[in-house]
């Protein structure tokens, strides 16, 4: 059984200007020990999808669908049940390390409370465990540093602390939401490496959310490409990089700088902007920016799937795939 199985997840927000549909019918599975990357532009709904099944949506957000963790639906759980999983079996690292730690509490307090709460450790044991974890994420002099407050740490160091907090209870799933975006480029690489290295040491699954397709090339097993709230293409990392099917994926790849390309070879940007989530166009959502748009793209494109777990939502046929349109996929019925 998959560790996490998300089925038809929908996230929407009530705003004064109307309903914003952030995530549309996302379905995917995540196996034990697998690293799944979710890639897409800002506003594609990556973070909101994860926050939704972690029960961390803003008050004006609502979620539908299913998110089965070990077969239990996270979305139907009572706060008590969910709190038994959050931080213990599923841990999460956030995008902005500068504001994600509580500035009023020492690092020790913020780390110890996790194991004290989930594993019933006493303060001294909890502290010793926290020191070990800081050592594991390579904070120098952890016995002293643990007594300090977040403002005495640099951005990269804070993100290491966030990672250490996430790993305290040896979770089965670590969700990293753009863990390196807010950091310096040199530190970005360190953080990404650290996460994937720590993952290899455990049997942990990793869900990596990023807008940087290149950054996940060496880390991910599988990739989901999201656009305007839905998955446009899913596949193994090699499939996505070497045999991209969807024009959007191809556009993303063309916009990544590469060393093996001639230096006078221009980077291709995808023209235009993602659609307004309040007034999504009918048919293909990528239509207006797509270089291969056709007349029929005004209708909703079919979903191509293959037996090896690839999928693409486009009128262009996917190699080795068959369409699923109107077969098993439930239509939006609102």
């Amino acid at each position, binding site marked *: 059984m998959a560790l996490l199985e998300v089925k038809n997840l929908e996230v929407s927000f009530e705003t004064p200007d109307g309903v914003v549909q952030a995530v549309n019918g996302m379905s995917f599975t995540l196996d034990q020990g697998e690293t799944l990357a979710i890639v897409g532009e800002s506003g594609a709904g990556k973070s909101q999808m994860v926050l939704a099944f972690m029960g961390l949506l803003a008050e004006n957000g609502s979620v539908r669908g299913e998110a089965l963790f070990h077969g239990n639906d996270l979305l139907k759980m009572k706060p008590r049940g969910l709190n038994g999983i959050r931080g213990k079996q599923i841990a999460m690292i956030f995008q902005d390390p500068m504001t994600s730690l*509580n500035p*009023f509490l020492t690092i020790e307090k913020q780390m110890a409370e*996790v194991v004290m709460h989930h594993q019933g450790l006493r303060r001294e044991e909890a502290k010793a465990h926290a020191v070990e974890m800081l050592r594991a994420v390579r904070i120098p002099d952890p016995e002293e540093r643990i007594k300090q407050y977040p*403002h005495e740490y640099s951005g990269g160091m804070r993100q290491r602390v966030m990672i250490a907090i996430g790993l305290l209870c040896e979770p089965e799933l670590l969700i990293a939401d753009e863990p390196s975006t807010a950091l310096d480029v040199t530190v970005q690489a360190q953080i990404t490496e650290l996460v994937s290295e720590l993952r290899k040491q455990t049997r942990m699954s990793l869900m990596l959310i990023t807008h940087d397709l290149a950054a996940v090339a060496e880390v991910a097993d599988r990739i989901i490409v999201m656009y305007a709230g839905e998955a446009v293409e899913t596949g193994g990392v090699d499939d996505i990089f070497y045999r991209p099917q969807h024009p959007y994926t191809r556009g993303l790849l063309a916009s990544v700088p590469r060393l093996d390309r001639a230096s006078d070879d221009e980077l291709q940007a995808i023209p235009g902007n993602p659609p307004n989530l309040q007034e999504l166009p009918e048919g293909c959502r990528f239509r207006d920016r797509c270089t291969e748009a056709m007349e029929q793209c005004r209708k909703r494109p079919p979903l191509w799937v293959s037996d090896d777990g690839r999928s693409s939502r486009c009128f262009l046929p996917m190699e080795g795939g068959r369409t699923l349109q109107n077969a098993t996929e439930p239509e939006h019925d609102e």
Partner: protein
Amino acid sequence: MRQEGLLRHAAVRLLGLIPTLLVLITIAFFLIRMAPGGPFDGEKVLPPEIRANLDANYHLDEPLLQQYFRYLGQIITGDFGPSFQYKDWTVNELIAQGFPVSATVGGLAMLLAFVLGTLIGTVAALRQNTAVDYSVMGVAMLGISIPNFVVAPLLILGLAVYAGWLPAGGWDWSWQRMILPVITLALPAIAYIARLTRGSMIEVLHSNYIRTARAKGLPESLVIRRHAFKPAILPVISYMGPATAALITGSVVVERIYSIPGLGSYFVQGALNRDYTLVMGVVVFYGVVIVVLNFIVDLLYAWLNPRIRYSEAP
């Protein structure tokens, strides 16, 4: 290291209080002298010889500037001098008698306001935009807008005259006589603190570190208590300095209505009678209390907020 930073912060702030007090004393001294009349101008005009004697005795015949420096020299030793009006009483004695009463009523009112205000504000923040929130905050708005000279008679009428549960006024250090004045003084402060707490609590609950705390799987009550409460009451702490000072130095109106022998009544009497030493004494004493309370709040703030502990004091 942390202790050291806090101590130095305290020392620098303490030195900064001296010029503040000096300015206060100077302005108050010349203001009360500018008011027409003097302590010995009454219905009955005194014979000139007696008047000259009195003035000489209290040094009122000296040039004003000389009196000012004489007064400064005197209060440095902590002596506020004799009262002009309450014969046989020094101003120090009057303050020693009135202040404990005012401080008790005011201190209890502030304590009540802090506990109830933060509690109500937190509840309203957690039930944001619900009926609970709206009704609690509506009542709070009433608490701020209705002046205490309206609230006090209503409380007396309801709880003392009709119900007969509590005495209507007077003072004998019993808790029964403290209840009504304390409530009267606390009501607007409760309301204000509740509004402050609600606003900052809502802001704090939307911050990223609260999301982190929730992602850790901590129960919501612990998230509020451990992660949100401290940052949320920071604005309340800064409000409490001047507010406490205002309450414990005695509310003239409330002390009058409940016939409480506090400092406030001496202040009013002193000003009306041109009792220079009494007015000056009470003003200086008020000033010290306010300045010291602000200083304490400052330290409390630094202690609560680790980020300003090491920074140089302004």
